């Protein structure tokens, strides 16, 4: 009653079924369902996914099998073994049990033998999982050769169980003789191929994320500091060019809330910077503060400027500043002929965040600079009246005694004011600064008469070096105001400068030694000068004060050497 069985045909048939099986696996590997399978995890939801997926494969293996001699030649073992290997003993057991019970429900004289053996196959996979983890060889779990070997052993064990459990024995022996070769081979290869599939999928994902990070990093690196200098047309065009080069999208645009600031790529002939925003997508992104994606299919994209524009899809991402307010957008386009890659979509959002932060940083920077500027101006406005009245009072006395000296004093006074009132934002040479200080000190010399001596030690070759205007005078004024003028005996101020390689050191020393770090108010001038220098050149520069009580106070100004450009 038994038909003759062609072993080769059986192997071929099973192999074909396995191919179907693997194609389904391949398709599934493209879905997020596979994500938990690609690494060893202990999270319960991941284990559950693992169980469901492999149970599915187990059952599918049964259905894809051949009816043969009242039994089923199948590829069920792949699901059970891999479920155990990847999910651990519990998952393996559960998968095996599910697959086994399902097989049992189909009946046949090997039903119970198959149910038991499938459960044990799941357990074998699970035990190996545990063993490899304990030996810290988790990397081997995904090794196709291990899957192959394990499945081979599991299948041989299944044959043994069939022989032991299925009755009548001779029937079982005959069956095993027929199916042992096809089933062990097919299942072992199938398991190895399945594992290979998972490995490949993982490699692709890694490559993808590496490419993504590399792109993101390169854009971040190239765009650093561009927008800090200001959110304007020239900077935005530069940036759009960088983004377009790095992402390879058809075109990149950056807008503020009203107009286009920069456009690079396909369609640059009619998307002109400076024109008002016309695209409804951009307007929606700005209005609703949301990412708008017009893929050209489900959401139509049509250039609102020119009919023959080659652009076919676009992604608009709002740029958000303080308190999440939209201050502009960045737009990525692809031409009609190209697909919008999801990589670029994600990247686009990252870039938008990066740019938002840069603009924010730029604003803070500008505000800080502005503050320092206005504080210096305030300082000038504050000091001068005090100084002025004392100077005028001195002048009144000198006019009476020595009109010629008074005329000279008027000259110094006008020099001092002219230099003080010059715009603060500008640089000055050390020579300018010394002249400013000198004019100031001449007036103080007249005022304090023999209570003040002034000495200079500034080498001529340093006089052309540049520094921020109004850096020296406030320090010298402090030396007089809080130093010399508070001395009961005569005092001395020494102004010296020296160069230490790339460092310009200016030292202002008074002989009072009365310096006290004041919490507020009085030290204002010095703090401002210090802040301005640090803001401009960095924290390595600025002002240092040292004091030997009742002997001296030394204020050292440290600046990077900036050679004056060729005289013009």
């Amino acid at each position, binding site marked *: 009653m038994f038909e003759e069985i062609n072993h080769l045909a059986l192997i071929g048939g099973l192999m074909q079924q396995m191919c179907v099986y693997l194609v389904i696996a391949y398709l599934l590997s493209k879905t997020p369902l596979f994500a938990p399978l690609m690494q060893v995890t202990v999270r319960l939801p991941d284990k559950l996914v693992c169980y469901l997926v492999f149970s599915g494969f187990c059952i599918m293996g049964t259905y894809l099998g051949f009816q043969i001699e009242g039994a089923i030649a199948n590829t069920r073992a792949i699901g059970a073994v891999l479920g155990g290997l990847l999910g651990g003993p519990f998952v393996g057991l559960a998968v095996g049990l599910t697959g086994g019970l399902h097989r049992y429900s189909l009946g046949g004289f090997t039903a119970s033998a198959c149910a038991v053996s499938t459960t044990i196959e799941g357990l074998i996979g699970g035990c190996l999982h545990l063993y490899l983890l304990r030996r810290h060889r988790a990397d081997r779990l995904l090794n196709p050769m291990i899957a192959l070997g394990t499945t081979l052993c599991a299948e041989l064990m299944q044959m043994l169980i069939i022989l032991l459990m299925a009755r009548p024995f001779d029937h079982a022996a005959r069956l095993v003789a027929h199916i042992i070769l096809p089933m062990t081979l097919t299942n072992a290869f199938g398991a190895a191929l399945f594992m290979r599939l998972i490995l490949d999928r993982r490699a692709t994902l890694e490559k993808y994320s590496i490419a993504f990070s590399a792109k993101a990093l390169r854009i971040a690196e190239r765009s650093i500091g561009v927008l800090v200098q200001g959110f304007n047309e020239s900077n935005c065009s530069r940036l759009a060019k960088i983004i377009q080069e790095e992402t390879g999208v058809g075109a990149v645009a950056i807008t503020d809330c009203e107009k286009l600031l920069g456009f690079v790529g396909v369609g640059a002939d009619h998307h002109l910077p400076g024109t008002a925003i016309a695209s409804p997508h951009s307007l929606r992104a700005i209005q609703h503060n949301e990412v708008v994606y017009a893929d050209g299919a489900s959401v139509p994209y049509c250039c609102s400027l020119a009919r023959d524009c080659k652009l076919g899809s676009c992604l608009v991402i709002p740029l958000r500043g303080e308190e999440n307010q939209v201050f502009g957008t960045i737009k990525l386009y692809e031409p009609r002929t190209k697909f919008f890659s999801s990589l670029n979509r994600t990247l686009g959002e990252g870039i938008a965040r990066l740019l938002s932060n840069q603009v924010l940083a730029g604003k803070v920077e500008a505000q800080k600079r502005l503050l320092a500027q206005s504080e210096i101006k305030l300082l000038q406005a504050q000091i001068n009246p005090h100084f002025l*009245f004392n100077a*005028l*009072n001195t002048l009144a*006395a000198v006019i*009476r005694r020595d009109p010629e000296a008074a005329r000279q004093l008027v000259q110094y006074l006008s020099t001092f004011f002219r230099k003080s009132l010059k715009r603060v934002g500008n640089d000055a040479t050390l020579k300018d600064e010394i002249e400013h200080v000198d004019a100031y000190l001449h007036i103080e010399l007249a005022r304090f008469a023999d209570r003040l001596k002034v000495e200079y030690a500034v080498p001529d070759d340093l006089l052309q070096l540049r520094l921020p205007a109004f850096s020296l005078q406030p320090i010298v004024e402090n030396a007089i105001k809080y130093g010399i*003028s508070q001395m009961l005996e005569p005092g001395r101020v020494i102004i010296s400068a020296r160069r230490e390689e790339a460092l310009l050191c200016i030292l202002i020393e008074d002989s009072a030694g009365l310096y006290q770090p004041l919490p507020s108010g009085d030290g204002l001038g010095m703090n401002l000068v210090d802040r301005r220098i640090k803001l401009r050149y960095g924290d390595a520069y600025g002002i240092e004060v040292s004091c030997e009580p009742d002997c001296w106070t030394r204020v050292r100004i440290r600046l990077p050497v900036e050679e004056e450009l060729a005289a013009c």
Partner: protein
Amino acid sequence: MLTALLIDDEAPSREELKALLATARDIEVVGECANAIEGLAAIHRLRPDVVFLDIQMPRVSGLEMVGMIEASALPQIVFVTAFEAHALQAFEEHAADYLLKPIDPQRLARTLDWLRSGARPALRAFPLATGMLRQIPCMGRNRILLLAVDEVEFVHTDLAGVQVVGVQRQGVTELSLKILQERTPLIRCHRQYLINPERIAEIELLENGGAEIVTGSGRRVPVSRRHLREMKDRLLIT
């Protein structure tokens, strides 16, 4: 005839004021000082009718100085300053008057009229006098000292004047014991002595009912019977 003393740390400033005052025949400038410490001595020595006092001066300002003047020697004060803010403060201190630098001769003439007429009430009590002194200006050996009150152990009078004895330095001050008692934490322990309670190491009781204080640096200061009880009360000794 009014006698006047000029106290200003800027020589040209004094020079100018002197020149302006020279035009008034009934004003005699009896002295000039370049700081508050010298000024205090000069006021006590010369007893001028009016003092033209600069406010911004080294270490001890004009405003602080007024509070150091012995009440009986307090002259009319005219503050002279380049700073309007200071001038306003001075005015609140009930100074006789204030002048802004550079001085307007007509404004000065008006001040002199007031001084001559005595129309402005002479000031005898400064609100500032309630403020505590942080340092005591003294003459040391050939130099001016500013002794911090914390540093002072005791003060006593002798023939040379009021001696301020600090831990390391000492000098003679123009400030009277009375003013020091009022304006510093020093307390009276004897008719001629003030002691800094912070510097008392021990008090030795004597048979005659008096006592002797040993200071932190081992100096001995007498305590009279009259002041002993008062002192015990102050120090919460029963």
